[in-house]
């Protein structure tokens, strides 16, 4: 897979602090790329550099292999976290204006808006002023204006905030459809469940530094701790006694009729060996590996990097 955007050694210094410190990452063509990080990590700074709102102090960006220039902006769609529209302007007029600013002709913008307004059932809003719409409705208008020029590279900063679950689902499905049609989507969000559902790749930054990057599958695989969940019925003590030095019991919880134990494999021990020990003692109902969620990895990595800073 080729990279649509390559970010190389970006440094951005603001008065008093370093917002981005030697950040590099590769965003694969056609991926849904989760840009993660706690508040103030430097996500918005990075996005503003990619959208050419600001320029980096040093480092370079390649878009489809060639240095990023203002011409490329036509291929990008950007939905900022702090969003807004002209409150006193009519919906249709405003959407047309923003479409034209992205390089569409008036007629073309009109045609595409008709399609989207029909699809989202908002034809009746055309003549209304933005301030007459609810927050969720405004978000919909803004979402449409972001994707109207059919960008092949979309940057969405917290796209789901402000939507009710139904509309969030609607937007999510549109994003998946866009991704299927070949668009690359960069998603900056705190909502880990949407990262799990949507993202193929993620990058985690904290305090201006990148601390993790890769495909979601790879990262989860790398971060699993070889811990398994055992569902059984029987005596807790018998279960504990059955474990010998090669296994570490994390905890046991009671779940309705049965118990759930979490056991970590030590050394090269396998679940089969665990089962061999347990089978004579208790009734096994199920066994599965615990794969860490992105949320767990996020918290763990951020804490690690912060401790590292303190230690250093």
């Amino acid at each position, binding site marked *: 897979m080729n990279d649509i955007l390559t970010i190389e050694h970006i440094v951005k210094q603001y008065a008093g602090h370093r917002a981005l410190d030697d950040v590099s990452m590769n965003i694969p063509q056609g991926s849904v790329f989760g840009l993660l990080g706690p508040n103030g990590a430097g996500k918005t700074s990075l996005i503003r550099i990619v959208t050419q*709102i600001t320029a980096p102090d040093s480092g370079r960006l390649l878009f489809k292999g060639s240095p990023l220039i203002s011409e490329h*902006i036509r291929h*990008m769609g950007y*939905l900022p976290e*702090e*969003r*807004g*529209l002209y409150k006193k302007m009519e919906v249709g007029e405003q959407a047309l204006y*923003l479409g034209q600013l992205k390089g569409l002709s008036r007629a073309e913008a009109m045609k595409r808006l008709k399609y989207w307004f029909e699809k989202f059932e908002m034809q009746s809003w055309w003549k209304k002023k933005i301030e007459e719409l609810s927050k969720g409705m405004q978000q919909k208008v803004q979402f449409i*204006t972001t994707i109207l020029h059919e960008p092949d590279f979309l940057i969405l900063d917290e796209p789901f905030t402000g939507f009710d679950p139904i509309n969030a689902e609607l937007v999510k499905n549109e994003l998946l459809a866009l991704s299927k049609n070949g668009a690359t989507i960069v998603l900056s969000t705190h909502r880990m469940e949407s990262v799990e559902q949507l993202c193929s790749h993620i990058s985690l930054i904290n305090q201006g530094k990148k601390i993790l990057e890769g495909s979601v599958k790879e990262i989860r695989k790398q971060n699993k701790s070889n811990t398994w969940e055992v569902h059984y019925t029987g005596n807790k003590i018998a279960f504990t006694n059955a474990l010998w030095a090669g296994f570490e019991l994390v905890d046991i919880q009671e779940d309705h009729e049965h118990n759930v134990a979490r056991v970590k494999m030590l050394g090269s021990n396998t679940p089969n060996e665990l089962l061999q020990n347990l089978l004579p003692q208790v009734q096994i109902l199920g066994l599965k590996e615990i794969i860490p969620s992105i949320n767990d990895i996020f918290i763990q990595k951020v804490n690690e990097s912060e401790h590292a800073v303190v230690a250093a």
Partner: protein
Amino acid sequence: MSKIALIIRREYVTRVRKKSFIIMTILGPLLMGAMIAGVAFLSAVDNEQRRIVVVDESHLFSQKFKNDENTTFLYLDGPVDSLRSRSKKEGYFGILLIPASENMASLEKAVTLYSEKQPSFTLIQKIQFTMEKEINTSKYSDAGIDPKKLESIKTDVRIQTRDLENNKTSTPLTTIIGFAGGLLIYLFTFLYGAQVMRGVMEEKMSRIVEVIISSVKPMQLMMGKIIGVALVGLTQFLLWVILTTTIYSLVMSVALKDPNKSAMEQMIKMRTGQDLPVDTKYKEMTPAEEISDAVNQINFPLIIGSFIFFFLGGYLLYAALFAAIGSAVDSETDTQQFMLPVTIPLILAYVASANVIQNPDSPVGFWFSMIPFTSPIVMMVRIPLGVPWQQVVASMGLLVLGFLFTTWLASRIYRTGILMYGKKVSYRELGKWIRYKN
């Protein structure tokens, strides 16, 4: 359509369509006319009835003060103190005390008018005029001059002033036009500069700015807004000119009662600035004719042309600064600290123009019409009175340099400020923004 043209179009169309713009455009000339007429009317019509007690201890002025529609003079003797204490009860407007004296000349500065309310300027004038006349007459007779002879000797010289190209130079009307032009530039700069500032703040506070500057450069957005608003101002001005001309020629065609002069001819004459034939000067003129004559002497193409230049120059210079302020703050209340240094030169120019009008070629007039921050207003005041072309060109050149400088300065503040939220901005901070690379 290019992006900056799109921005200009949006700024222009949304403003021109507003009800407030349409109302101001129609009401502006009407209000202006009504205000001038109102002031003239109020100062002319003064129908308060006043009784003034004259205590003439010199006995030189008995029955000399003539009653008129509003003022009745009562001649009473008696101690002034008791009259003063009774004044309110009796309903006197005031008490005029003329102290005892043998000759009139010694009374020149000895007379006092007591009144509860501040006496009007015209009333004081009337009393002074009467006394001056009496004292003059007495002085003439003391000196052995026959007042009648003196009257017949009196000459009335009125010279016409013309410049080297034989055009008529300043008349009271040109002075008024110059002052009005300066005032209009002052008002427009404030009005439309504030509109730019509010527009920038609207974009910043509604957070649409980030979407837009991911499509266009901050400089384009700022200039688009400034130019769009400038066009709104020009539109308004031109509509005012057309409307005023129409009203003026309608009024004049009625007032002149001259069937041969159609309103259209009047307008053409006014536009081209042609003089009336000289012989009309020597005819007895009605007030309407006098006004019309004075209006016809004015070089309107020059005045309107220079108005447009200095309006645009001054506006561009200040609008850039207003845009910078709008970008730097988070709310209307934060604008105060930055507004002051921007408004002071403007107000100074306006105040100075009152002085310049008396003395157009004074050092104040010269320097204020050169410094770009004050020149749009002060030069506009001077131009109808006649200014050497070298000065006009120099002033225009400096003004262009001035607005290029403020625009550059503003764009550097703007591109940083527009994305900066939740930070109380100081002048030091602004200095840092100006020095940022990008």
